[in-house]
């Protein structure tokens, strides 16, 4: 069996940072950009509860501490888009996560298809019964399946997409406000992205942006994440 105690013992301070990114190399990075990126990617209140993590900029200017359950996701999302460093970060973070309890991609794919099949079925039913009392039954089932998926496959990057959609629907019962056409669009997005073998942070971002374009508010509430910036250098 996998030794899950490795999760709390792994030294994340240095472990996930590739050589080229240690020390002064991160000096040029825009920490506000990090913050925005994180805010976009990890928008759920549930996430905040499950994976408390903290990013600080130390004297040498690199990420000093990352704690939490969702190592790969958390680490990957601190990379600014277009910096060219994404792959290195993601790749390195995966190596770290390998030592904790991480499911194989094939397993993620199988479970993903299993849950998404249920989700798509519920989406069709919501479309059919929109503005009628029956829609609530399917919305409840839909949200429950999404949360179950999140709990069972926490390391699957596809969860980011699912939970973004979840938040758009769950917050203040917003599921009741969307139109059948919007649900049709959501159906097509999930159907398209679930078949992708490799879900990168780019893929996740594209999918979430498409939800946003359809009018789904994937970040319907503010976050209370703590970002500490070492002021010594600033």
């Amino acid at each position, binding site marked *: 069996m996998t030794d899950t105690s490795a999760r709390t013992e792994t030294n994340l301070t240095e472990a996930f940072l590739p050589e080229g990114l240690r020390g002064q190399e991160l000096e040029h990075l825009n920490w506000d950009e990090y913050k925005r990126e994180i805010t976009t990617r990890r928008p759920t209140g549930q996430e905040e509860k499950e994976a408390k993590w903290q990013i600080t900029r130390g004297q040498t200017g690199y990420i000093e501490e990352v704690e939490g359950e969702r190592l790969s996701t958390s680490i990957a999302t601190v990379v600014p888009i277009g910096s060219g460093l994404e792959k290195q970060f993601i790749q390195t973070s995966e190596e770290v996560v390998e030592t904790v*309890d991480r499911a*194989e991609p094939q*397993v993620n794919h*199988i479970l993903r*298809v*299993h849950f998404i*099949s249920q989700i798509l079925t519920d989406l069709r039913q919501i479309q059919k019964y929109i503005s009628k009392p029956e829609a609530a039954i399917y919305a409840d089932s839909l949200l429950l399946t999404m*949360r*179950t998926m999140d709990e069972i496959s926490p390391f699957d990057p596809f969860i980011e997409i699912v939970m973004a959609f979840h938040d758009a629907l769950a917050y203040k019962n917003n599921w009741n406000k969307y139109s059948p056409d919007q649900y049709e669009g959501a159906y097509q997005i999930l159907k398209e992205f679930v*078949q992708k073998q490799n879900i990168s942070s780019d893929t996740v971002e594209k999918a979430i942006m498409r939800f946003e374009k359809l009018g789904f508010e994937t970040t319907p509430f503010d976050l209370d994440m703590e970002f500490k910036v070492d002021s010594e250098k600033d």
Partner: protein
Amino acid sequence: MEKPVPYKTIFQINYKPELKFYDLLIPSAQRLDEYPHWRTDVRTVILRDYDKHCSIIIGHKSFAYEQDSEDTDMEIKYIQRALEELPSSLQIEIFNRFGYRRKYLINVKMSFESLVSILHVKLFSQDAKLRNILPPHVEDLMYRLDFSDKPYRYHVTVGPVHKAEMPRYINYNLENHLDPQVREEEYKKIIENYPKVAVFIDIDFYQEGDKLKKDESTSFLKTARAKINEFANDLTEYLFNIELEA
């Protein structure tokens, strides 16, 4: 996607024991001359083929064909022969049970832990209340159910297995299916060839009744094969599906 491979098949017919059986036992066994090896005691004759890894045991209250081989064509042929010869030579008109059982392994290219995750999600309830009651990490599991689909019934067992556990579940018939001269080496090779991690599926399909007739055994066999094949293939498809339905 991996397919379920039949590692063992057993076909058994049960009947009421009668005294005349003892006179009919040896002549009946002699009719099945395709088996090169045999052994007998007062109550049974065992016919064996070490090369084909199959045997038939003719007893006072049942006869059973068993094979430790994937060769389903051979199985069909040998069972058919037994059904043609034995009921008439043993003078049995009425039976009380037909049973057809297959043990499959689905070779999977993933860790045991990952396989447990998939089987857990796909075969057991994920109700939040239940998950809150149970401890968080499922290390191993077994899915065991009995079904009825009148007039047939099933005993079904499904579970993840390590290579080391496979001999216990497959239960290879060493005595009847391997030549004593090379038994140990052969069995070692068989065990070595088991997959590292697999799904074990054991389906025992049967029909019981006070007055089952010979004709029914043929239709039972046809149904049993079709149902078990369908069950094993559909279950594999369900467990490892990566395609969304249209």
